[in-house]
């Protein structure tokens, strides 16, 4: 007999996600993923100045802030043919790296850790034992018994106050928690450290972009100017500030995040064979070292892997209408030509069409439409995107940095490469790439200083800033790798205005409902066969869903090039 369970809201994510699952004989036998909120940013973009699009699309997500802004300026630059100066590319890379560092650390501790770390168990820990374990895996100076005792007292006070706050009603004591109390205590302590540290690294955004979340970007370069002889621009002090932040980030990632990740993983090895899901992986690649138009010199490679065959990497082209296409068969939209066929983003349509049950509802009609998320496919294949896809594509493309870090880690667990195709593999990939990104960031910082030292202080290419210099019609695509995976924007510019704008974002790939052929996307596929100790307390489902780091506000979107349904709303 199967039991239907509903988890809504899925918490510790960005956005509104609902999972409905069937559990049979203690395992998930079927799962449905639904995005339950929509805003309509794409239709709002129509008719506006393409140079403003970065600010609008940046608001697609405040957790992965900046990533849409970056994809957007690239899209417009691609459309009208702007090449940004090398320094602007470096500043964009630095902001990209800062985002990865902050986002991945916050994901591991604030969004994912409580799936593995039992906070209440930490009360039973011996701080001396926690000290000895922590010091055996890391030189992090705060790992002392006094410190662990303080944290323990703090948690104790919280529990005794009767107001558990964010820890209220957690799954404490659930049989799927396997960490000994001392390791739980280390986890809780570093949860607090991570929360405090993350507000530091994002100051890189504040320095170059003026604020975080949502720093400022600019079509043609970056808005901050360089002047080594003035306090009002990027100067020696600002560069030194960034350098210090990077140094501290490397310490935090190497001495806290990665050791904790490996320690936690060592108690949950069975999760290296749970939650693999799809066998196809897609990455657009990013972090240019020779300009955005030369993907062969990206730090993260571009490509697709099918059927887990790491011996072959397929070329990926954003501008090819036969590659990325979207279905709405099970999404609350309708296509003029029928919902069975997919459409490429440049010709995409969206017409809001809610056919779900009238709220309040208990269950969705999963045979029909059941999500605000569309279903993208690459050459009609469902693809997983994200840190794992990124590392696999890089690994298969022969990226030596990536090969080294993966091989070294697998050796520690005495595990084969296939262990990566799992919930824990996904979580591990995120930590490993964070370490790489931290070191790459240091290189970019040094390169920027070298350029400035050599007299190149250009940050902006003003040549095509004025829209009147643009062709009457221009189409562009901008590819990037958001922390959560492959991200692309498509633009169609007519008469200096946005005629059409489309976002296909990482969580659209991963969280989407089934396609017209009934094929599952990543979340739904990876949840199959997940063991459930107690369906009433769906901790195991949260582990796998969280391993993707869901970000749902980005994933739901709408536009309507025909303007049919939505045109009825007058534009004043």
């Amino acid at each position: 007999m199967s039991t239907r369970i509903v988890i809504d809201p899925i918490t510790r994510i960005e956005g509104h996600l609902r999972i409905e699952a069937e559990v049979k004989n203690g395992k998930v036998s079927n799962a449905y993923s639904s995005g339950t909120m929509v805003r309509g940013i794409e239709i709002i973009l129509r008719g506006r100045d393409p140079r403003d699009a970065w600010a609008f699309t940046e608001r697609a997500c405040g957790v992965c802030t900046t990533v849409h802004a970056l994809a957007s300026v690239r899209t417009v630059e691609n459309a009208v043919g702007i090449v940004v100066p090398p320094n602007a590319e470096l500043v964009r890379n630095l902001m990209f790296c800062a985002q990865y560092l902050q986002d991945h650390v916050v994901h591991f501790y604030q969004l994912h850790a409580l799936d593995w770390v039992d906070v209440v168990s930490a009360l039973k820990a011996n701080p001396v034992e926690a000290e000895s374990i922590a010091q055996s895996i890391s030189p992090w100076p705060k790992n002392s018994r006094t410190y662990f005792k303080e944290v323990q007292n703090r948690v104790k006070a919280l529990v005794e106050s009767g107001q558990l706050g964010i820890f209220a009603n957690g799954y404490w004591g659930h049989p799927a928690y396997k960490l000994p109390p001392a390791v739980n205590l280390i986890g809780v302590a570093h949860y607090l450290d991570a929360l405090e540290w993350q507000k530091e690294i994002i100051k890189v955004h504040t320095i170059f972009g003026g604020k975080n979340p949502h720093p400022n970007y600019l079509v043609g370069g970056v808005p901050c100017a360089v002047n080594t002889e003035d306090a009002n621009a990027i100067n020696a002090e600002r560069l030194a500030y960034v350098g210090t932040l990077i140094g501290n980030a490397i310490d935090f990632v190497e001495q806290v995040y990665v050791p904790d990740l490996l320690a936690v993983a060592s108690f949950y090895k069975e999760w290296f064979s749970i939650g693999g899901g799809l066998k196809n992986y897609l990455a657009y690649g990013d972090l240019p070292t020779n300009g955005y138009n030369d993907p062969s010199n990206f730090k993260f490679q571009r490509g697709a892997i099918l059927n887990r065959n790491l011996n072959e990497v397929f070329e990926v082209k954003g501008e090819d209408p036969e590659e990325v296409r979207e279905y709405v068969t099970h999404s609350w939209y309708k296509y003029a030509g029928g919902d069975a066929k997919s459409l490429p983003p440049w010709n995409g349509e969206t017409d809001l069409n809610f056919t779900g049950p009238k709220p309040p509802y208990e269950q969705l009609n999963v045979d029909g439409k059941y999500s605000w998320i569309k279903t993208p496919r690459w050459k009609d294949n469902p693809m997983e995107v994200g840190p794992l896809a990124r590392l696999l594509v890089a690994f298969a493309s022969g990226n030596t940095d990536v090969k080294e870090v993966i091989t070294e880690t697998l050796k520690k667990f005495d595990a084969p490469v296939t262990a990566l195709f799992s919930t824990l593999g996904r979580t591990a990939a995120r930590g490993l790439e964070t370490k790489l990104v931290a070191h790459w960031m240091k290189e970019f910082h040094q390169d920027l200083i070298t350029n400035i030292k050599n007299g190149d202080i250009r940050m902006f290419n003003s040549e095509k800033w004025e829209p009147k210099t643009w062709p009457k019609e221009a189409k562009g695509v901008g590819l990037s790798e958001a922390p959560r995976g492959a991200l692309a924007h498509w633009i169609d510019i007519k008469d200096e205005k946005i005629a059409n704008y489309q976002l296909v974002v990482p969580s659209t790939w991963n969280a989407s409902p089934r396609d017209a052929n009934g094929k599952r996307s990543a979340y739904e596929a990876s949840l199959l066969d997940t063991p459930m100790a107690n369906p009433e307390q769906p901790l195991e489902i949260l582990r796998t869903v969280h391993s993707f780091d869901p970000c749902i506000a980005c994933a739901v979107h709408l536009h309507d090039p025909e303007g049919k349904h939505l045109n009825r709303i007058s534009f004043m």
Partner: protein
Amino acid sequence: MPDQPQTLWEKMQSQGYSRRDFMRFCAYITAAAGIHASGLSKVAKALETKPRPPVVWFHFQECTCCSESFIRSSHPIVSDIILDKISLDYSETLQAAAGHQAEAALHNTMEKYKGEYIMTVEGSVPTKDGGVYCTIGGRTALDIVKEAAEGAKAIIAWGSCASNGCIQASKPNPTGATPIHEVITNKTVIKVPGCPPIAEVMAGVIVYILAFDRLPQLDGLGRPQSFYSTRVHDSCYRRPYYDAGLFVETFDDDAAKKGHCLYKMGCRGPVTYNSCGIIRWNNGVSYPIQSGHGCIGCSEASFWDNGPFYRHLASFPGFGIETTADTIGTVAAIGAGAGVAGHAIATNIRKRRLIKQEMEHSVKNEDVASANEQKGGE
């Protein structure tokens, strides 16, 4: 286990903090909340006698940038707020529990602390088509917000989404995105606009309520005066260049490299009320103008429709501009096609009213201040 939740002072004692630490902490948050130093004893007394107030934090149509901003707070740091100062009983971003367990935590607080909990909302509420554009646990945002507002002691609208609808409410507002004060009309809604608001401003608003057990003083638009009474333009360190008529003409030009005024690059500082120039961002590191980009006016209603962002505000740049900025309601200021201009005029009429209110208010305050001074002198 005690029946009564611990007060902050008790909590700090149990963590080994001294009375002196406690007083220093009180001084810190007093300053953070923009409270005059004479209010310190009041803050200390409030914090040492109160249990941690329960807070329920909703997410509707939003991007979570407000939550992300909140966790960037450096004074107080956010773990101190959520573990020691408030009890964050419902937060989809941070709470351990999901699904039914999360909903149970919410309802437990709403029942147990009826009339006592602080309700904070991040995001707008879609009202079109029966609210189907945002549901949580199968219920519409509209339903949820109305139910929760009933028993709330205070309601805070975080960010521009909840305060004025923000991006999803900009034209043509496909989902009927509506700010909270238009959905909850029988209670005061404290608006903390910005996309997102500054972290320390968010923390400061919470600290204010906690310390004084009352809502912060609000301006005519429902924003805490302590953070939204100054125009970015009036607190801008580049203001002297504006007054001297020295402007950036294109990004990365010589003027940009010297930090001249960004007015001609579309800066909205002259029509934006926020603390960016004073508190600055991410513990005072910088703010948009300091980093070379104009203010986009993200704390003002309809700022998305007052673009394009790089078209400068109306009028001739130079010495005469100040008049224009202050009497902006009389000018069809930000032209971007007839539709947007129409909207801009509506905004500007509101703005004119606001400026008038602000001016009257500041006159009143000056009167009070001078009266106080006289008293002090007696």
